[in-house]
């Protein structure tokens, strides 16, 4: 299933961007515009950072890509699908092609680390025995091999972060979105996690990392989408 989706995206990717924003404006209720006239594209297999001061709208932009909010104006297309009035079946299939690491991890506290990481495969209706080896291997690889039976409230901040990242990677998404993925880990682990994202990108996944850690961004020559006062500026290395 994932292979088929990836195959399609490679073909589609040769033609169109993974994410495309055209003059997108976004406000919550009657409040001021959080984003104004934001236009950019995320190309297939690309790697970029999204940065800007706190409250600049990074999380809102990620939520727009994740289709959890709709733009107030402008056009948002994800995997070539324009998202206004999208059917819920299509929404699900688009989300299955994305992996996301939330700033607050969003691990389910009543499930073990193993179950949390396996969640994207489980919701596809796959049998537990069919993905056990994959999940265990990824958990061991992110250093959670000894912690897979632990419930998230007992994990440290760094362990939660790695579990959240493993959950985002397990279904080998075509697009990875990460909101401050290195915010809770020491710089050494932060660099190792960054290398993980870079390798994932080499294997074909488009990566967008929201961060305001300049030291981290300086480690990679990547495009930077800079948000400030609701507007977006693209800096290319």
């Amino acid at each position, binding site marked *: 299933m994932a292979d088929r989706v990836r195959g399609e995206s490679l073909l589609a990717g040769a033609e169109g961007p993974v994410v495309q924003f055209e003059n997108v404006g976004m406000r919550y209720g009657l409040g001021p515009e959080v984003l104004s006239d934001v236009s950019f594209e995320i190309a297939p297999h690309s790697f970029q950072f999204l940065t800007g001061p706190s409250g600049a709208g990074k999380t809102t932009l990620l939520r727009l890509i*994740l289709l959890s909010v709709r733009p107030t104006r402008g056009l948002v297309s994800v995997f070539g699908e324009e998202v206004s009035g999208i059917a819920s079946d299509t929404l699900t299939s688009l989300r299955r092609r994305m992996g996301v690491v939330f700033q607050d991890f969003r691990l*389910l506290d009543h499930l073990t680390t193993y179950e949390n990481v396996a*969640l994207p495969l489980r919701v596809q209706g796959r049998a537990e025995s069919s993905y056990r080896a994959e999940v265990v291997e990824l958990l061991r690889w992110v250093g959670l091999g000894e912690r897979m039976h632990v419930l998230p409230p007992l994990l440290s901040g760094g362990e939660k972060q790695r579990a959240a990242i493993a959950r985002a990677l397990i279904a080998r998404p075509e697009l990875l979105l990460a909101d401050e993925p290195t915010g809770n880990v020491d710089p050494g682990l932060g660099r190792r996690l960054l290398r993980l994202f870079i390798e*994932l990108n080499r294997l074909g996944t488009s990566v967008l990392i929201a961060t305001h850690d300049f030291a981290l961004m300086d480690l990679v020559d990547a495009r930077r989408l800079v948000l400030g006062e609701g507007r977006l500026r693209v800096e290319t290395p």
Partner: protein
Amino acid sequence: MGDTAPLSRKTARTDATRSGARPGPGDAAAAEPPLPPTLRRNAPLVPTDSAASRSLAAVIAILTFLAALCAGAAEMVASSADQWQGAVAQEVTIQVRPSPGRAIDADVARAEALAKATPGIATTRVFSKAEAERLLEPWLGSGLDLSDLPVPRLVTLTLAPGPSPDLKPLRASLAEALPGVASLDDHALWLRRLSTMANTFVGVGVGIVALVLIATGLAVAFATRGAMAGNREVVEVLHFVGADDDFIARAFQRRFFGLGLRGGIVGSVAALAAFAAAGVVARAWRTGPAGEELDALFGAFHVGWRGYASVLLIGVIASVVTGLVSRLTVRRFLA
């Protein structure tokens, strides 16, 4: 985890796993320690065993218990009424009234002869004067001299088994041979009243069962909405990792069906136990002096297999209602 090789290996490995190949002996994972035996791998996605779940299971158990009692009682009334009707319908009575200037014994003998000549009458029994007077004792007291009273005499006729015979010719010949003296009572009025009463009981029982099931459904709908609101985070994460609405609805349905099943089983078993206990108590009473009369008046306390089956069926229906209602509620909540 410092180098980049493991992710590539992981990718190659997962490809192999997906295509059905077994990991080879040289595979790195083979050297890894085995999975902890206590690792929980497939826990329900919706958290269970909260205080709210236990309350809901208790509410479902209580409602199932009440519905099952109702259904069992209705079934008992229906079957008792059936038995009673059967017994009463097997008998008709000829009443012969004393009349001045007539020999009542001759009239009774004449009536009995007419009855015996009628096809479909199996046996006849004449109540003697003493027997007829004894029937009045409960109302008038014993030790009275009733010889001056014009006490009517009865002849009971037992009908042959099979379809009830046509009693019109007998009625006509009695009216002709003993005009104004003998009358035939086939208990039609009683039977009609009895069956109306039994049907009313059964109807009320079915109505109460339906109401209780509706109440169960509403309680489950409220509880589901509460659970959805309490698990908003879970629902959101499930959506983000690619679960569709149907998957989420099924997860909630499974959890609530489990609760419904638990409540339904507890309620049904409690109802079965209540009927069994009531049966024991009724048997104990029946051994007393008034037992025979109670039995005759109300019928034996007996919940047949249909009663027990309906009790169990209500437990199953309560669980199914719980599952379905929670699924519908979740679908509507997500829409």
